[in-house]
């Protein structure tokens, strides 16, 4: 292979791993140091115009994965390839160019805007850093345009405001505007609506979807809620304790899932319908502390279909149907 990367993809993550050193206190006065494998051997490929959903419980490594892909963390192992080069080896200049291409929207709109910046300063800052627009007036015009695009009309009324003078939904729109102002080709949204009131969530989600399609972005949307992911992503990957346990086109995954954890996750989403009562049959207990991962398949202590082999051996990923991968001992490769 002459090129490191398949040119159809914007970003490719190859076997990335991230370890953190953490201090744990177990009934003792003095702390103990341990290694937390937050992300464990993950492979991802992202295409323009396509949205990948990343689902899992808190602490499963979704956000760490996102930050690795954006170069906010350095992976302990593995490569992240963008346009033929490994981003983990970027020099300062290359990194700055990469920043222009990859952006993120954060979970908490009350946290992601600097409280001491006016909205116009928030939006113009990236333009100043990347020297876009020849003068302040031009930059202001770009900021106004993007504000109108994300539905904050008329833009002039918002430019002079501070974040605390806006509602959560409006702030999240500003955050989207900031992410898009540099015309990125990759967008990662980390739980973009989970802090917002239910009645306005759909508006933000459809705005995101519109932007992704219009601008032909490669996107990743992180959420703990499969029912929300369904509305935005084309593919969905389910994560458990740092690993992707199942990945498939979203509707396919909802209709036909193979991993017991996905099964449980789907079962667990409560329905706004009194006729469908929850019954959790596919899972036991709570997720262990990621510091003490079980041996073998890390899901085995909670799995109702656990076999002997699950306790000893880590499963390998198999393609069970076209484009549908599972990491589970229950399933064998269709081709082999």
């Amino acid at each position: 292979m002459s090129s490191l990367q398949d040119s159809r993809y914007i970003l490719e993550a190859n076997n990335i791993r991230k370890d953190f050193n953490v201090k744990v206190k177990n009934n003792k006065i003095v702390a103990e140091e341990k290694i937390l494998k937050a992300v464990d051997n993950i492979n991802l490929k992202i295409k323009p115009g396509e949205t990948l959903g990343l689902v899992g419980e808190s602490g499963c490594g979704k956000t760490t994965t996102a930050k690795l892909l954006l170069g906010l963390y350095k992976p302990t192992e593995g490569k992240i390839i963008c346009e033929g080069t490994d981003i983990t080896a970027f020099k300062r200049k290359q990194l700055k160019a990469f920043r222009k291409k990859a952006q993120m929207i954060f979970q908490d709109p009350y946290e992601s805007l600097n409280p001491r910046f006016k909205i116009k300063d928030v939006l113009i800052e990236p333009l100043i850093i990347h020297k876009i627009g020849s003068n302040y007036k031009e930059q202001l015009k770009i900021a106004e345009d993007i504000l109108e695009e994300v539905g904050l009309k008329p833009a002039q009324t918002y430019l002079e405001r501070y974040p605390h003078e806006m509602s959560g939904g409006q702030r999240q729109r500003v955050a989207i505007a900031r992410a898009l102002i540099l015309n990125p080709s990759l967008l990662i949204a980390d739980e973009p609506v989970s802090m917002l009131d239910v009645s306005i969530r759909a508006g933000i989600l459809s705005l995101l979807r519109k932007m992704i399609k219009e601008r032909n972005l490669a996107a990743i949307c992180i959420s703990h809620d499969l029912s929300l992911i369904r509305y935005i992503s084309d593919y969905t990957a389910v994560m458990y304790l740092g690993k992707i346990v199942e990945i498939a086109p979203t509707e396919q995954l909802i209709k036909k899932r193979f991993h017991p954890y996905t099964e449980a996750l789907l079962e667990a989403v409560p329905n706004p319908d009194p006729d469908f009562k929850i019954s959790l049959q596919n899972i036991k207990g709570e997720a262990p502390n990621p510091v003490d991962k079980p041996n073998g398949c890390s899901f085995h202590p909670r799995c109702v279909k656990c076999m002997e082999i699950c306790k000893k051996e880590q499963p390998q990923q198999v393609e069970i149907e076209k484009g549908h991968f599972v990491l589970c001992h229950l399933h064998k490769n269709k081709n082999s």
Partner: protein
Amino acid sequence: MKLLELNNVSIDYKTIEGNIRAVDKICLSIEDGEILGLVGESGCGKTTLIKSIIGLLPQNGTVAEGEIFFENENLLKLTKDEMRKKRWKDISMITQSAMNSLNPVYKISWQIVEAIQAHKEISKEDAYKRAEELFELVGLEKGRLNDYPHQYSGGMKQRAIIAMALALNPKIIIADEPTTALDVIVQSQILERINKLLENYQGSMILVTHDMSVIAQTCTKVAVMYGGKIVEYGEVNQVFKEPNHPYTMGLKNAFPSLVGEKNDLISIPGIPPNLLNEIKGCRFKDRCPFSIEKCSQENPKKTNIEEGFFYCHREEEREKLRVLASKQETWLQENIKE
């Protein structure tokens, strides 16, 4: 028999900017054995309302008018000490953020025993035994009783709080967003556990949440709050199948579902009203696609239906509105008159 009855209750907050009427003339009752869901967006006054029932309004909040009857006794007329004795024994509570509701420096067992001993002449050993029973009830290992809260996961803390709430077999339990901070699976486990406990539990419960699906899973009755008022109240099945208030219709649309085909997710445009200003007419009118002239002039009247009520000026046309409300075009910003 009516266990709890709120009669025309209004609650005011004093703030630097002025008085806020967080709860406005609410009438609501709950019968023995009933599980009432109270649903609404943040700032709609749901938490304020339940805090007034248990007598724990913050210092700047006061019940401006109305009565709260519990077993035919007006709670607002009780002395502080009489009210204190009612708490937990008759009315217990599962707080909003169970994560922070346990005192970090005491063992869980200590905190449960304390609650029991505050109301019962009972030895420490017996109280501890009761705590063990409770732990079994909520699905926690007895051995973990002597842990500190920080050694528990979020779900375990929530279970511990539920155990504590059940300790004295109260007549009513008020649960304020009991599962909001939890992960999906843990949330479902807790909801399942609550459902199971409710089967054997004689008393009533008020469950406050912003999540319609949680209500659908647990409650028998539901009250929908908006801008300090209850806009609709009724049997859960009825409200979910045939919502009568446009807000309920919109709220129902906004919830994604995994069951069946993907249907459009629709959001309600605009933001909730600012309660600092006095509002004339219906409080939902600014966000309602069906609002008419009358809505901004008069307060809507109560329409009683079997097992419930709602407040809307267009009560006659509700069948038609329901059909319209399920369409995405209806809820576009442009269709809403300022």
